[in-house]
């Protein structure tokens, strides 16, 4: 199947996808509830899109196409409320977080759908290990070349998104000492990581995709698990490195940060991306996963080292004009506070330290997701 043509879309339009966790309120473990949730949600119109994911403890929601922060956030809140309400009727909790802190991958069940079964047959246990939860942000591009430009120009900012969304400190019941351990699971896939450095769509199509297809390794763009990948059928690039944050407010803010950043980059205010930028890419990415906002970045052009949190605050200041033009200053404000107060991963670890059990992290995530306010005094009695 040849690569489909890149459909042009409105530049800087936004779409957000969130993969969410379904947990049992009886024991806070992940539960295979997506068929029941979908069955119940079908009864009423859903304010967005809701679809199954590869294992049955996951559910994916997607927004419509937006251009402004406020309506995007409103739609996400409305989807959240509908989900929480439905989940309550089924004794299910729904929440964000890049990983479930103590679910066992071997207990997961593959959703009954041809593509998921195919993936499961190909990748074996990796598929069940892939029960991790990410936020994907689509940014509209007016042309395919613009998409490839943005994809590469964003390379130095990828760690920002990892650190700001990091919410996966625990895996299979143990502290990983990472802020975002989720990306380690993505890295296990053979076609993950960065996209090849190709600047025009023609080159991408003829030099890269056609060759890869000829090797028989890939059939469509879906087979690539890159950090950022072009999505020709939507006319977008898709940023895939974010953990699903614990609140939809954080998710909307991240999307709009990306939007303002893309506007800034499209105004050609920085030296153009180069292949050598990627020399420091994996190191920076690791720093963001491991240490989050406390990590250190190496600038791809100057090789100067700078604390990640500081670099984010500086960037937030730098793109204020673009944010103002796009009406998303509130999003930037939200993220500034997040840098100061610490990531979602810190919030989860604090719950663990306070109550001494992994279940309390799920409890904290549930509270954070449905209330969208700083977590209230906890009801745990043991300490």
């Amino acid at each position, binding site marked *: 199947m040849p690569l489909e043509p890149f459909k042009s879309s409105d530049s800087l339009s936004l779409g957000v996808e969130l993969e969410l966790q379904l947990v*049992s309120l009886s024991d806070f473990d992940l539960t295979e509830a997506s068929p029941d949730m979908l069955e119940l949600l079908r009864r009423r119109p859903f304010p967005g899109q809701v679809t199954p994911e590869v294992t049955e403890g996951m559910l994916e929601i997607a927004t419509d196409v937006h251009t402004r922060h406020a309506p995007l956030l409103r739609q996400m809140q409305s989807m959240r409320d509908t989900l929480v309400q439905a989940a309550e009727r089924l004794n299910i909790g729904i929440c964000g977080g890049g990983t479930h802190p103590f679910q066992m991958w071997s207990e997961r*069940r593959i959703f009954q759908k041809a593509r998921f079964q195919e993936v499961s047959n190909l990748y074996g246990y990796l598929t069940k290990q892939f029960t991790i939860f990410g936020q994907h942000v689509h940014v509209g591009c007016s042309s395919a070349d613009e998409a490839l430009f943005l994809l590469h120009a964003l390379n130095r900012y990828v760690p920002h998104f990892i650190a700001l969304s990091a919410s996966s400190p625990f895996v299979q019941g143990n502290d990983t000492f990472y802020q975002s351990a989720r990306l380690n699971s993505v890295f296990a896939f053979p076609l993950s990581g960065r996209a090849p450095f190709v600047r025009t769509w023609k080159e991408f199509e003829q030099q890269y995709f056609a060759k890869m297809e000829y090797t028989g390794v890939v059939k469509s763009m879906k087979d690539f698990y890159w950090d950022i990948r072009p999505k020709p059928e939507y006319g977008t690039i898709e940023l895939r490195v974010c953990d699903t944050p614990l609140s939809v407010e954080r998710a909307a803010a991240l999307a709009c940060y990306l939007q303002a950043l893309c506007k800034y980059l499209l105004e050609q205010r920085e030296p153009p991306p180069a292949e050598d930028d990627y020399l420091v890419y994996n190191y920076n990415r690791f720093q963001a996963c491991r240490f989050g906002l406390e990590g250190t970045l190496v600038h791809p052009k100057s090789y100067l080292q700078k604390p990640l949190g500081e670099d984010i605050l500086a960037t937030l200041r730098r793109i204020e004009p673009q944010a103002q033009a796009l009406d998303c200053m509130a999003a930037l404000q939200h993220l500034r506070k997040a840098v100061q107060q610490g990531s979602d991963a810190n919030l989860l670890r604090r719950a663990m330290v306070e109550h001494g059990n992994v279940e309390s992290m799920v409890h904290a995530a549930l509270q954070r997701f449905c209330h969208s306010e700083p977590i209230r005094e906890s009801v745990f*009695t*043991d300490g």
Partner: protein
Amino acid sequence: MVDAASVLSETAWPLTLLLAWLVGEYGFQRLRLPRICAYALVGFALAPTQAGFLPQAQSPTMVLLANMAFCLILFECGYGINLRWLRSNPWIAATSVLEASLTFAAIYGLLTWWGQPMATALLLAALGMATSPATLMRIVTECRSSGQATERLLYLSTLNTVLAVFVFKIILGWAVLRTSGNIFAAAYGSLVVFGISVVLGMFAAVLTLLLLRVLRRCGQDSTLAFALAVISLVALTFGLKLSPVVATLTFGLWARHGRMVLNASQRGFGSLGSLFSVLLFVFIASRLQWDQVVAGLDIGLAFVGVRLAAKVLGIGLLAHPSGISWRKGFFIGLGTVPTPALVILVLEQTRLLGNMLVDQLVPLAAATLALEFIGPLLVQWALVWAHEAPAFREV
């Protein structure tokens, strides 16, 4: 001199359990038969009235052990209940009341029509309301099933077991009052026993949580602590001739809501739970007598049929409003078929009843035997058909 007869009688139980375990593993690996079916088969075959391998005399130790086995499972059921769900989805409680009342009415109707005395019909109708949490828990753990059918089966069985014991006690009180005219004896046998058991269960919960906190074992595996607490509570209520069923269920409920999170406990109490389940299912089947089964075959099967119809109808009617498909509602109905009637009857000492019921147990013997084998299979199939358990064992 070693007395061969006494050695044989002392080893009869352990050897039977070993054999039951072996048959259970074979059936599970080769035929994917639920293990508890095999346990019941071995128990029934080796019973004193059948092959006669097990000793004739009823040992109080075995009754106590079986009680512990059943109550450990009940504790876990209580611990799994999230009372907030009953508030946020009132249809769950409504479904429970509807299916239990329909079952009660249907069985009572059947038995009086069949010519059973009113007291017997009422008592059996009360017991018939309950779905065996023990059978459900073992099957759910064994097939690692999860989803709404699984969740609701466990909730409904816990709720209707409480309802059954409550109604059973009230009817018992009424029966005593009618025969003896002594209102104190009647009240003691029913409501007072029920009330004291609830209080003891709550007390056990508070005490255990307090101990765990003092010992700072909160973040760790507290499976053993809870298991020992349940066992002590059962021994106490058993000795005081109270209701172990009610006490342990209350203990579970109270313990959960006192601390919010069941942390790091092993599902089904791990190996301890498995050991006890072999014992429980062998023991119960060994109480059945072949001649009783044959004598009550027709009424027994009618009992099973009427009960199943009532439960499927009651749960099915409210499936859609409660948030699931009719299809799942139907499978939940199928899954509620295992009955713990005999278990409750044996464990909740009916000394006040004397031998009144024993001869009239006939319908229950056949029904229990049928359901000890068919019940687990039906639950397993219902969960597979509801797509909540894998149809074959995944590697």
